[in-house]
């Protein structure tokens, strides 16, 4: 079977998707990155291998995206390395070519993408802080001792919500503690947190953007029905959570790989599924060539350096050149 592989390495999750030639999802894997992207990419690939035992898989195009896209690209031998905004937009467009707005909320960043006639016309990412991101909720959930998976259900049960103030996680937390002391119910506080997050998102990331339906909501946080409900309330439109909401970035990367291989046909640079057995090492050092003290990262396979990046001047850069 001819397939395209998409890898999305984010700060919180590492996702892999394998698409067949007709863009059907053959496998999808969602893993927590836990600060070990290489290990997780390997793990993801071996899961894919296992899931498709007995089928002869031929990967004819690989795309990577996410904040770890350069690392993933260098490691896997990607044919295209794309930013996650384009990847998410492409994935959503594939599912619904008329999509106008995408809310994407991941672990440590969040984005809004505005589209018109099938192309991106505007976008924004969270600046400065994590107020409108998944880690905000994660943090509050662990504080309340409620599994994040159940957060949405709690919020839906609430009759009222409490207003939680605070631009950043720390201030929101102190306000939340205050509201707890005042005796508000857990459900109401959670509903308040969901609303605070949506408000922060729309006021920061979504500021000044023309939000029009159809609206897609993707990324890990889309699992949270409380957030979805708050978005519906704030925007007054239906919010569509696509089936593969968690791995949309990886789907987009796979689609971009397909596009690339169709427009510039060639042999894929993919190192093959066997790469799970290879020994990858990354190391970093601080260059002291100038007062900038750049942190240079290098990646080795079986002792041989295959890529190096992170320096501003280009003195060390080697191998994978996405953007310098």
């Amino acid at each position, binding site marked *: 079977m001819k397939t395209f592989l998409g890898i999305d390495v984010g700060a919180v999750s590492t996702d892999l998707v394998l698409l067949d030639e007709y863009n059907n999802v053959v496998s999808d894997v969602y893993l927590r990155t836990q600060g070990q992207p290489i290990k997780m990419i390997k793990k993801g690939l071996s899961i894919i291998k296992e899931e498709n035992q007995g089928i002869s898989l031929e990967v004819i195009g690989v795309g990577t995206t996410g904040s770890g896209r350069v690392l993933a690209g260098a490691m896997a031998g990607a044919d295209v390395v794309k930013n996650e905004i384009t990847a998410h937009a492409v994935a959503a467009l594939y599912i619904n070519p008329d999509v106008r707005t995408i809310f994407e909320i991941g672990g440590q960043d969040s984005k809004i993408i505005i589209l018109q006639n099938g192309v991106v016309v505007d976008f924004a990412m969270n600046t400065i802080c994590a107020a409108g991101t998944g880690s905000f909720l994660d943090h509050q959930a662990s504080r309340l001792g409620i599994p994040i998976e159940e957060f949405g259900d709690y919020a839906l049960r609430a009759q009222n919500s409490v207003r939680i103030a605070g631009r950043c996680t720390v201030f929101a937390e102190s306000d939340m503690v205050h509201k707890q002391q005042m005796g508000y119910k857990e459900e109401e506080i959670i509903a308040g947190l969901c609303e605070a997050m949506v408000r922060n998102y729309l006021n920061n990331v979504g500021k000044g953007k023309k939000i029009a339906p159809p609206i897609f909501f993707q990324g890990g946080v889309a699992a949270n029905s409380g957030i979805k409900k708050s978005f519906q309330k704030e925007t007054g439109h239906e919010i569509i959570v696509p089936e593969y909401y968690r791995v949309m970035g990886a789907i987009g990367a796979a689609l971009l790989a397909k596009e690339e291989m169709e427009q*510039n046909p060639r042999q894929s640079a993919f190192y093959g599924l066997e790469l799970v057995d290879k020994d990858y090492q990354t190391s970093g050092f601080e260059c002291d060539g100038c007062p900038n003290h750049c942190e240079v990262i290098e990646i080795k396979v079986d002792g041989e350096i295959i890529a190096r990046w992170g320096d*501003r001047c280009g003195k060390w850069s080697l191998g994978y050149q996405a953007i310098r």
Partner: protein
Amino acid sequence: MQKKKIGIPYALYFYEYYPLWKEFLTRLGAEVILSQPTNKKILDLGIRSALSEVCLPVKIFYGHVLSLSEQVDYILIPRMVCIERGAFFCPKMIGLPDMVRSSLQNLPTQLTPIIDVRQSYGTWKNSLMEVGKLITDNSSEISRAFSDSWKIFQQNYLANILEPNLLFKSSIQNNIPKKPRKDIEIPVNIAVLGHNYLTNDSYVNMDLINKLKKMNVNVLTPEIVHPAIIKKQLKKLYKPIFWSLSRKVVGAAFYYFEKKVDGIIHLTSFECGEDSMVGELIHHQSQKYPDVSYTEFVFDEHSGEAGINTRIEAFLDMIRRKKRYEIGLTPSW
């Protein structure tokens, strides 16, 4: 007699006025020492010594001042108040000498000439003459040094300005190959706007301009737009802007919108008061030009390079994918 060493922090308004001061002071026989371009050490020095509420450009200025403090006899920190009727510098630049004095200890003597052209003591000439007197007693020499360096400064300033039709790489609209093999072959014009201490400080803006150039972008800046064009563009405003530095940014933005460049990137500093208002004006204007992609990059000391790279890539992807659609290169999926 040993030459007097005068330090100039390579930050804020000196991106504009360093050539003038350097020319003037050197002609009088002083040794001018410009601080290094911003680097990690300078940034760290600034962040450590300023209140966290202070904007990034001022923090960086602090860092430059500190980096000079052991090498020079004097540090030049002019109080920039007003260089044209009806407009000011921002409050922080007006109060800069006092802020530096309050926050930093053990500095060399500070020279704080005041530039306020509404007052006789604050004209460029009188203000520079005042500083010149520290170096030499010969007032006719000072006067001559001033007029010569002023002339050179003006000439150089005008030399940077491009003819409107040279601004844009010629016939760029028809320049798109029928079937570009790679996206990078699609030529684009992008205006990078912002205060020049942000657009020209490649450490703070993560080398944005060079990154764009490497991605085959024709980069346009406010400096190359003729002041007369800027003045004309500003007439579009309901109320004139009263910040000199922002006038240039807004005028250039309006001009580039009118010229329908492919994209405009507005670089701003978090907590910059002018930028917060000016950003809104430009954003408001951008809605009248849906063909021009517009985005704002906000910088502060916590900005990460990865985030900026993603934004640059996504912005260019957006523009280039749009163009590909226009020439019929739609993806097959």
